[in-house]
C-alpha cells in the first residue's frame, strides 16, 4: 500500500515537472517569436543620386586620425544616405601589415609615405594613385605640471628625464628619431644630443595615442606626438613647440585599395577628404591642410 502511494506521488510529481517544463518551453517559444518582428520594408530613397542599397566602406586609418576621420565619416554618411563607414584605427605600420596579409579594406590613410609604399610593393595599392590629404607637425608634450621642467628641445637630454616615444616602425616614432638626428647635426645641440636623448627613453609605444595616454596619466616626463593629437587634449597636457627648422612635416597619403569591392565609393570618400570641406575639418582637428 505504502509503495503504491509512493509510486503515485512519484508519478504526480513527475507529471507536474513535465507540465512546468512544457509551460516554460511554450513561453520561451512565444518570447522568441515575439522578439523577432517582421523586418520593416525599406522605403525607396527620394534622391536617386546616392546608391539605393546599404553599403559599407572599410577605411583603415592611422591612429592620429581617429577624431578627425570620425567627424569626416559622419559628414560623409550624412551626405550619402545608405553608406556606413567602418573604421580601423591603429599605427600605420600595423595597418599596412594587416593589408599585406589580406585584410579586407577599401581605403588606407597612412601617416607616412613608407607604409603606403610597403603596400604598393605588396601589390594591394596601384602605383601612383596615393595622394596627400593632410600634413602634421611634431610637438613635445608633458604632463600639465611638467615635473621635469622641460622648456626646450635641449631639456629632453637632461639627466633623469623620462621620455616616451613611439616605436620606430610607427611613423611618428621614425619622425622623432629623424628630429633628434637632425638636431644632432647642428652645432647648437652637439653630436652627443641624439644618443643622450635616446638614453632617456623608457618605452617605445605601439601607436601615437598610447604615448599621449601615458603622458596624460603622468607616468613619464615628456613625449613626442603630433600637434593634431594635442588639439583635443589641450587641457590635459602642456605643449612645447619644436623649432620650425628642426620640425618634421609629416605627409599623410591616402589611397584606395586595388581590390576594393567599392572602388567608386572609395574614390568619392578620398575626394571628400581632399575637398575644401574635408580639409577644413582636418584643420579644425589640428592638422595642416595638404597643399592642394
Amino acid at each position, binding site marked *: 500500500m505504502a509503495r503504491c502511494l509512493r509510486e503515485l506521488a512519484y508519478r504526480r510529481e513527475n507529471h507536474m515537472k513535465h507540465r512546468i517544463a512544457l509551460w516554460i518551453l511554450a513561453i520561451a517559444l512565444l518570447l522568441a517569436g515575439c522578439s523577432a518582428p517582421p523586418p520593416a520594408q525599406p522605403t525607396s530613397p527620394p534622391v536617386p543620386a546616392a546608391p539605393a542599397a546599404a553599403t559599407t566602406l572599410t577605411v583603415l586609418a592611422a591612429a592620429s586620425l581617429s577624431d578627425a576621420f570620425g567627424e569626416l565619416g559622419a559628414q560623409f554618411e550624412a551626405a550619402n544616405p545608405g553608406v556606413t563607414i567602418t573604421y580601423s584605427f591603429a*599605427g600605420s605600420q600595423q595597418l599596412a601589415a594587416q593589408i599585406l596579409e589580406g585584410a579586407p579594406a577599401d581605403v588606407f590613410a597612412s601617416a607616412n609615405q613608407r607604409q603606403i609604399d610597403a603596400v604598393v610593393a605588396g601589390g594591394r595599392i596601384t602605383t601612383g594613385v596615393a595622394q596627400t590629404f593632410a600634413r602634421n607637425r611634431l610637438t613635445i608634450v608633458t604632463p600639465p605640471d611638467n615635473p621635469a621642467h622641460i622648456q626646450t628641445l635641449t631639456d629632453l637630454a637632461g639627466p633623469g628625464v623620462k621620455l616616451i616615444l613611439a616605436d620606430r616602425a610607427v611613423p611618428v616614432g621614425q619622425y622623432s628619431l629623424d628630429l633628434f638626428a637632425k638636431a644632432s647635426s647642428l652645432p647648437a645641440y652637439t653630436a652627443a644630443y641624439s644618443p643622450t636623448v635616446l638614453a632617456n627613453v623608457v618605452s617605445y609605444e605601439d601607436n601615437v595615442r598610447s604615448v599621449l595616454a601615458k603622458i596624460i596619466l603622468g607616468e613619464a616626463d615628456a613625449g613626442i606626438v603630433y600637434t593634431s593629437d594635442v588639439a583635443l587634449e589641450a587641457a590635459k597636457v602642456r605643449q612645447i613647440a619644436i623649432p620650425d627648422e628642426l620640425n618634421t612635416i609629416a605627409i599623410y597619403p591616402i589611397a584606395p585599395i586595388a581590390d576594393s569591392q567599392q572602388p567608386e565609393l572609395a574614390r568619392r570618400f578620398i575626394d571628400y577628404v581632399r575637398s575644401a570641406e574635408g580639409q577644413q575639418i582636418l584643420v579644425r582637428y589640428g592638422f595642416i591642410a595638404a597643399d592642394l
Partner: protein
Amino acid sequence: MTAKLRESDISRPVAAPGATRRMPWRALALPLTALPLLGFLVLPLVALLGRLNLDVLSAQLLSPAVGQTIRLSMMTTLATTLITLLLGTPLAFLLARTQFWGRQAVDTLLDLPMVLPPSVAGIALLIAFGRRGLFGPLLTSLELEIAFTQTAVVMAQLFVAAPFYVKAAAAGFAGVDRELEQSAALDGATRLGGLRYITIPLAWPALFGGMIMTWARALGEFGATIIFAGNFPGRTQTMPLAIYLGFERDLDLALTLAAILLAISFAVLLTVKWMLRQRVGAG
C-alpha cells in the same frame, strides 16, 4: 523482476561472418567529432612553422637582440613563478583549510585576474603603482619607480598568472586526506613535518601543474606588460612584445621569435609532463 537479456542489449556484437560489410560508424564517431577542434588548434602552428625561412631563422638565432629578448622572458617568468610559489602556497593553504568569513569572496576575487582582459590588468596596475597612481607618492618618497622597469614586467606577469597556481594548489591541498595528517601527528610529527612529508608530497601533482600553468601564462603575457611596463628592448621587451612589434616591422623576425617561443614552450611542457609521470609512477 529479472528482465530477460536480449540480444540487442549487447552493444558490441561479436564479429560474425559478413561483418566486413557493416560500416564501423560507432568506432569512427568519437574520433571524427574530436578531430575538428584538434585540427584547428594544431594547423595554425604547423602553418606558422611552414612559413619560416630557415636561413633567416638561423641568422636571427645568433643575433644579440633575439638572445636578449629570450633571456629577459626566461628570467622574468622564472622570477614570477618563484614568487608565486613562495607567496601563493600559504594563500592556497589558507583557502583550502580554513573557513573564514568572506572566503567565497576571496575565492572569486582570485578568479578575476584570470578572467579580466590583460589590458585592463595593465591599466589597473598603472593606476595603482604608477608614478601618479594610488601608491605613487609613497613609492616616490622611497625613491622607487616601478613603471617601465623589469619589476613592472614581473608584477604584470604575477597579476595575471599567479591565480592559476593558487587555485590549483588550493584544490590540491583540499584533496589531501586529513586523516593521514592526523595519524602523522599522532605518530609524533610536528606541523611542519606533517606538511613536508605528507601534505606537500600528496598535493604535489596539483602544485606542480599549477606552477607550470603560471609559468606558461606569464611567458605569454602581453597586454598588461605593454601598458604597465612599456616596451624597451633589453629592459622590458619580452618575447610576446617583440613578436607583436616584429609583425609590424619585420615579419621574418616575428616568425623566428614565434617559432622559438613555440619550441621552448613545447619542450618545457613535455619535460615537465614526463617528470610528473615519473614522480607519480614512483609514488
